[in-house]
Structures are given as structure tokens and as C-alpha cells.
């Protein structure tokens, strides 16, 4: 772990080569389960708890969703590899924003992710509660 200039804490979680495009994995970051996602080369991290009913959000499938064609009737597959569906009830979240598709006011907790010298870091806020007693 390192402490940034503004006091946030960076926690190394894996090597960048372990997160190829399309990758989805869950890591433990100081006592909290965090899902890591590589969407077309960009990395995202979400807290593994669905804001709907508390299910394991990040164990759900990483898929796409639909929008409609100009005729307004034909479903068109969209945002492939960006939409995380909760493992319990299937609510859809865009991993790049953490927002629920059905209601963007509902947000999954997201964390900034940084890659430094080939290592992936999840950035915790300075006031993030310490969940891991051994940390």
C-alpha cells in the first residue's frame, strides 16, 4: 500500500497482465470484496455488493444490453462487455460508471483504478473504513 499526496490509499491487487481485455475477477482489498473489470483496455473496480438487495454484484455475468433501432421496435445489442448483471436478480449496471440502467440514480460503489509499472492498484479514500483487522 502507498499513501498518495491527498491521503488516499493505493492497494496493489494484481499484475496488469492478469487483467486482459474482457477480464472479470474479484479481489479482496483490505477486507472488502472488489470486482475488477477490463473493458476494452480500461480497468474498472466495483464494490461486490448490489445496491438493490445486497447480492454479489460482481459474480454476475459481464454482458451487453439492448437499445432500439431507429424504428423503435428492434432490439439492438449494445455496450457489449460493459454491462454487469447482479448474480441475484439480474439488475444491470454499467461498470464504467457504476450506474444502474433501470434507474441511474442507483449506483454501485466504484473505486478508481491505477496501473503503475505493470501493477494494478485500487484507490481507497482516505476516510475509507478499515475492514481488515490485520491491515
Amino acid at each position, binding site marked *: 500500500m502507498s499513501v498518495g499526496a491527498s491521503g488516499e490509499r493505493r492497494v496493489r491487487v494484481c499484475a496488469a497482465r492478469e487483467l486482459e481485455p474482457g477480464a472479470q475477477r474479484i479481489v479482496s482489498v483490505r477486507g472488502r470484496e472488489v470486482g475488477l473489470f477490463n473493458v476494452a483496455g480500461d480497468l474498472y473496480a466495483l464494490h461486490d455488493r448490489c445496491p438493490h*438487495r*445486497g*447480492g*454479489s454484484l460482481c*459474480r*454476475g*455475468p459481464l454482458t451487453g444490453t439492448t437499445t432500439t433501432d431507429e424504428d423503435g421496435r428492434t432490439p439492438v445489442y449494445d455496450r457489449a462487455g460493459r454491462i454487469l*448483471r447482479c*448474480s*441475484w*436478480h*439480474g439488475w444491470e449496471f454499467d461498470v464504467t460508471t457504476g450506474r444502474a440502467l433501470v434507474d441511474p440514480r442507483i449506483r454501485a460503489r466504484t473505486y478508481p483504478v491505477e496501473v503503475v509499472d505493470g501493477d494494478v492498484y485500487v484507490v481507497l479514500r482516505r476516510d475509507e473504513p478499515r475492514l481488515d483487522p490485520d491491515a
Partner: protein
Amino acid sequence: MIDCDVHNSWASARELLPYLDPYSRDCLERGELPGGRDSFPHAHRPWLHPEGFERTDAVPPGGGPPGSDYGLMCEQLLDRYDLEYAILTGDEAIEVSTLANAAFASALARASNSWTIDRWLSLGDDRLRASLVVAPQDPAGAAAEIRRLGDHPGFVQVLVSSGAQRPYGDPFYWPIWDAAAEVGLPVAAHLGGQGGLNAHPHGCGPPTFFYEAHALLCETGMGHVASVICHGIFERWPSMRFVLIECGVAWLPALLWRLDADYKALRKETPWLRRLPSEYARDHIRLSTQPLEDPPDRAHLHAALEAIDGRHTLLYASDYPHWDFDAPDTLKLPAGWQERVMGENARDLYGLTRRAGDAVAVPA
């Protein structure tokens, strides 16, 4: 806490082979199957869940479908929520109701029940109770199966699908009610069997989308409730209870209001009834909670639940491991209902003994 809808599954329908008579075994082993070698013979509903209907975190690490791994079931449900009892409802077995060959359907139901005894009720886990699945299109065969295993202490109800050829109060089914009454088991209908032999589950014709159809599946529950009341099932078999599983709840008050109103004018059609339809429902019909309706204002839900005395008629159910699972700590029940809905109503219905050390003195 007692969970009244837990789906235990086989890893492959071929697990039933040892329990089948030679002819039925040959059909399962060599005959046509709807989904490949490991699939269970049944007619599938024409609405396919676009994401699959299982909780995706419930896939066993060693393979097989969700609900087939007892260890994972313990981890995700029985131990996690400290259940006192789980009422197993099987998974595909109730789909025998979709098969046109009633004798084969009953053979599969018998095999499934024997498999349930060997595979689940013999685990030595006293939290588990099971449902005796029968093929309702074969009333005589169903009655025989109820009499074959109805006295087994592990089975606490007779189970059929909510999809049916006709509503369950119809005299066609009376051999089933008679046998269930004889062995002292309630009869339950679980959401399912929405295809094949069974009448169309939606009154005005087929919906298009899965969720559209799913939201409307309370219709089958409505039909059965009206039927069992109007046909006087609870006059003919006064100790009988009818359980609706996974058909929703909040529609029931409106249906009972309508039945009561019409009965007052037209009771001459059903002179065997001696009470209002809503009074039979209160005393004889129980509903599982999942999927409990979830309006933005919970007062709206509570008004509906109070209208059917939900405190005494609702049974908590999770539907583990399916996609619309209701965790016990997320239910929006009225204050003071927890003890009864989360356990005591099921205990009374199924005659489940209280374990030493558990809380006592529950207010009625």
C-alpha cells in the same frame, strides 16, 4: 426461520434411471429428450428466460446446475441464514404435468420422489423436508403415489405445478385431494408447468416477453384459488390446506372481494358452500411470499397483506437458487409479523416440531 421454497436439483436427470420401471427407463435412456442427454422429459414453456433463471452465483464450483450441490446450498442458504427448516420443492420434477403420456409422467414423479428420499432426505440433515411430486393429469396414479409415500416423515406436502389442464377444484382431481386428506398432507401448487399438455396460463392469449409472462403468472394462482373454493374442497375435506407457491400475493384480496360479492348473489350455484369464499381462504389457503410484491410505498403492500390476514396466511420463501430470490433480511413485512410469517405459519401448516433451544412463546 423456515424457508418454504428451496429448489434442490439433480445434476442430471439420468440420476432417476435406477428408480424407473424398465419401460420408463428405456424411454429416458434412449428416447427423445427436450434438452439433450441429461435433460428431464417435459414440454417447455414458450417463454425463455433471456438470462437463464438461476442465480449466477449459485453454480456449483464442481459443475452441475444450481441447487444440485448440498454443500453450496448449506453455505448460501441453510447455514448463512440459520434456517430451522427448508421445504424442498425439487426443480424440474413438477414439469411432469406437461407430458401427454400420463403413465410416463407418473413414473417420472415416482422416480423423483424415491430419488429425493435417497439423495436429500437421507443426508442426515434434519433441516430438510421435501414435497411429494405427483402428475395431476393422472389422478389415479397421483393418488397411488400419495398413498405409497405419504406417511414418510420427510414429505410434508403434495406438490403439483400451477400450470394445469383445468383448475384444481375440478372433480377430475378429487382422487388427489382424497388421498392427500387420507395421509394428512396439504396440497401445494408451485409456479411452473406452463406448457405442453396444460391449458394456456394467460387468459387473453400468449404474451410475448419472458418478464411479461412471468408477471402474469399469478393468473394460474387466481384460477386455482377460485376453483378450490367454489368446488367446496374445504367442505368435503375440512382439514385440507391448499398452498400456492411463487404465484404472488397482492392480487388475492381483490379476487376474494369479487368472489364474496358474487357468492352473495349467486350462491345457488354452489349450495355446498356454507361460508364466504374469503373465509375459506383465510382458514385453508396459504401463500408463499416470494416473489413478494415490492411497491415504492410499502404501506400499499401492507394494506393488501392485512386484507388477507397475511400475518397468519403467508409463508416465507426464498426460491433459492433462482433469479428472483428473496433474502429473508430484505422482506418488507409489517411490524410484528416476522415470527409468524418467517416460521410459525409454516410450522403450524407442516407440523414441524420446534427444536430444543429455539425461541418459544410466540404470540398468535
